[in-house]
């Protein structure tokens, strides 16, 4: 039932090592799914052998490599059930996190996978603090957080465009207060300047501009806010705002502003 070329003896009768090496060969020759299946056979036929443990983590890696995220996660979680304190456990946990992380949808869609990824990444960092995956788990954690901030921005821009300034302000505040370290904070502050000026609350606009200047002076957002606040008006490329190009951007490209 498993892969392997026709002339090999049926799986049942092959030794754990033989199956394991065949699986490794499949992996090197760019057939990760077959590799995953063969590693599973090692575990199924010889659960108590030393090969079984290795095979379980290798099967998780093979499925992940083949972008079969569901199977990869199942194999990794099984490894963690049996060998939580083992040296490959950190990698298994990290694979679980990656299987969520790689499926994160763009900001305008459901973000449940982002939350799952954050959860799994946090577990990687907290349960295996000094493993060699902790650093890249930390990096991916920040990127996933950044993604959640992106979603708040997406909704904030929607309300800003529709002139619902209070709704927009509250969304951008969430980014500034709950996601201070993400790349979106600068834009959030500039949007707050835009929204507060539209409402006529100039001091609040200046406060937002000041925070932007203090933390993110080098950004284009700061230049935009500076221009708005000092009244010179934002420089807009002429083509940017013609009626037709707005239709093109929104209906064809799906870009929103």
């Amino acid at each position: 039932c498993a892969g392997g070329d026709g002339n090999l003896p049926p799986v049942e009768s092959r030794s754990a090592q033989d199956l394991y090496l065949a699986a490794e060969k499949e992996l090197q020759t760019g057939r990760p799914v077959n590799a995953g299946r063969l590693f599973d056979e090692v575990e199924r036929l010889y659960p108590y052998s030393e090969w079984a443990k290795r095979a379980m983590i290798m099967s998780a890696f093979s499925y992940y490599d083949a972008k079969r995220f569901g199977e990869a996660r199942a194999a990794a979680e099984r490894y963690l059930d049996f060998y939580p304190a083992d040296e490959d456990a950190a990698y298994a946990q990290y694979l679980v996190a990656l299987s969520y992380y790689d499926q994160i949808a763009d900001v305008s869609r459901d973000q449940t996978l982002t939350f799952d990824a954050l959860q799994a990444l946090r577990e990687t960092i907290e349960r295996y603090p000094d493993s060699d995956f902790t650093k890249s788990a930390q990096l991916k954690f920040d990127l996933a957080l950044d993604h959640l901030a992106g979603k708040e921005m997406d909704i904030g821009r929607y309300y800003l465009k529709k002139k619902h300034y209070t709704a927009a302000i509250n969304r951008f505040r969430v980014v500034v207060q709950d996601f201070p370290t993400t790349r979106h904070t600068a834009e959030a502050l500039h949007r707050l300047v835009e929204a507060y000026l539209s409402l006529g609350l100039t001091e609040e606009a200046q406060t937002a501009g000041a925070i932007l200047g203090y933390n993110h002076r080098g950004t284009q957002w700061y230049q935009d806010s500076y221009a708005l606040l000092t009244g010179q008006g934002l420089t807009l490329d002429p083509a940017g705002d013609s009626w037709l190009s707005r239709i093109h951007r929104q209906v064809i490209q799906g870009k929103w502003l």
Partner: protein
Amino acid sequence: QAVRVGQIVVEGNRRVEDDTIRVFSGLEQGAVADTAELNAALQRLFDTGLFEDVSVTPAGGRVVIEVVENPTINFINYEGNQRLDDDALAEVVSLRARQPFSRARAEADAQAIQQLYAQSGRINATVVPKIIRLDDNRVNLVYEIREGAITEVQRISFVGNEAYSDRRLRRVIETGQAGLLSWLFTNDTYNQERLELDKQLLRDFYLDRGYVDFQVTAASAEFARERDAFFLTFRIDEGAQWDFGQMGVTVFAPGLNEAEFAALINVRPGETYSAKKLDRIVERMSFLAGQKGFAFVEVTPRVTRDVARGRVNIDFELIEGPRVFVERIDIRGNRETVDRVIRREFRVVEGDAFNARELREAEQRLRALGFFERVEVRVREGSAPGRAIITVDVEERPTGSLTFGAAYGSSEGITGTVSLSERNFLGRGQAISLELASGAESNVVSFRFVEPKVFDQNLSAGFTAFYREFEYDESSINTTRAGLQPFVGFPLSEDSRLSVRLRVSQDKIDVVDSAVSPILQREAGEEFSLGVGFTYTLDKRNSPIDPTAGFIFSLDQELNGLGGGPQYSKTTATARTYTSLFDEEVVLSAEVEGGALVSFNDESRFIDRFVLGGDSFRGFERGGLGPRDVCTACGGTGGTENVNDALGGNMFAVARLEATFPVGLPPDLGIYGGVFADVGSLWSLYDTAGASGTVDDSFNLRSSAGVSLFWDTAIGPLRFNFARPIVKESFDEEEFFRVTIDTRF
């Protein structure tokens, strides 16, 4: 008594390592542990699900943990399942191959499979997990399944209904009886949710017709052991039929004037009570209050009974409600649909006053999009009192569809249609569809793209690209029209809509038969035509699917010839009204349709003129009535061939009367009958110099009558028409029989 935990000894484990078991037990080497702590360790080890049996016993300075590992699952397979395949079952099962087997989880999985069968209507399915022991402490897990037959609803009967017959109420209820092709239908299997829905449908039906006290007192389902079906009986108490009585408004919120709200009551005393009308009035009143800045005013109708006159007096009370704001609207489950496409259906915005009615309406609007299997708008307490967080959970459904249709008419033969459409393109709510229709005498290819809400407002825009080729044997010519039609559309009011379009097309008429009428000969050739037009529709029917009351009116006006080519104005208007008799069993409809083409250079072409016959005038072939150039041995090259060509007309008017009624067969067969009569004519040409001399293009009345038979099959609603002209011209072409399968649009 506490004991010092010296060394922790682990015994009986084969796969799980000693260290792992020590970590799981949570016991620390060298710490003091009392019996409670030891028990906790025991429990922790059990919770891992890895062990069949565990014991933790202190012995001298050491603690001995003895385990019996759960066997590892080698294979899981299912026996006895036909209706649901292994993959479907695997989805609900938590145990997987190579995981440790545990009896508790196997039992739970068996239960899950049984639940899955119940949902698909097989209530009496049984699932038993069995283990086959293998060497090396491994097992094969087998689920033995006995599906049992589908539990169908055999007959629905009602007790206590005087005002409406069992048949009428059955039509109200969605659970059709077990029909002929029952294994195809999914909606007539018995499940609890559907029963609740049926009760709600009955309640809405009666509440809309004045039965204020209507109640479903009991809904019992006797299970027919041998025929695996249910007999559903609804015991209902209709109560009396009430009318609207005195209606008034009392305002408790300062600053609102009663007269303005009283003006919104559009129901006169004596009219039959209707829950829908009452709801509409409450809706309009709260909207008006909102517009006046009183966001928190709640409108509650207080009902008092005038028993003597059988009337219900209603006093609309406007009371200032609690000040609650919407803090956030969170949308979840939209894996395909873009957030904005859902959010824009909400009139309420974050920071606005909380309004339960608006949330219900938004939920309706989301369901009406047709993108979701399930939509649930829920409210929970926000981050502070007076704050509400709205969560919108959607479950998407496949929005691509492939539908087939066919029509047979004695003159045009069979035409088949295939249409491929995607209603939620890229999750942006845009709709694209490609339609191919071809038959003996026509080929049509059209592609359509619609963005329903440009800039998220009520403005839809899109275009249709089309290629339409028709063979008119009866006029010995072919017409081909290929072009592009961009359009925009927007609602004018709740029930009316305006759509404006531009049409750019290349129109060609070519002659295919030597014996052709000189009139058509002169019109042959290719023209580029550019026109603008609008369509106004007002739809006051009580239901778009099977209307039994109300009317629909539409006006279409087109101006053509802006960029050269034929210059004309073409106007078409249709009005159709519906009514019903014998508690909506018999549905009558009367339709009047007319059209006029007025040319600015006193010429018109066949492709632009109106053609009647076939579906538009039953009893006559397509083009079978109207001005016709007929003569023998007067056409063709040598002037020896007969000419018999329909010329179409610049003006037409038709009245169609129709009645549909049940034919006494059990309704679940979906067969019902109809009679119809068409009266009208097609007339007026600019060029009447035909092969037969001057062609008579005056108004000659035609009429026809006939019967039709409808059958709702699984493939689609089938319609058979048998019609016979009554008043006709000698040269008209008749058509006695016609059948169509209406494709779903």
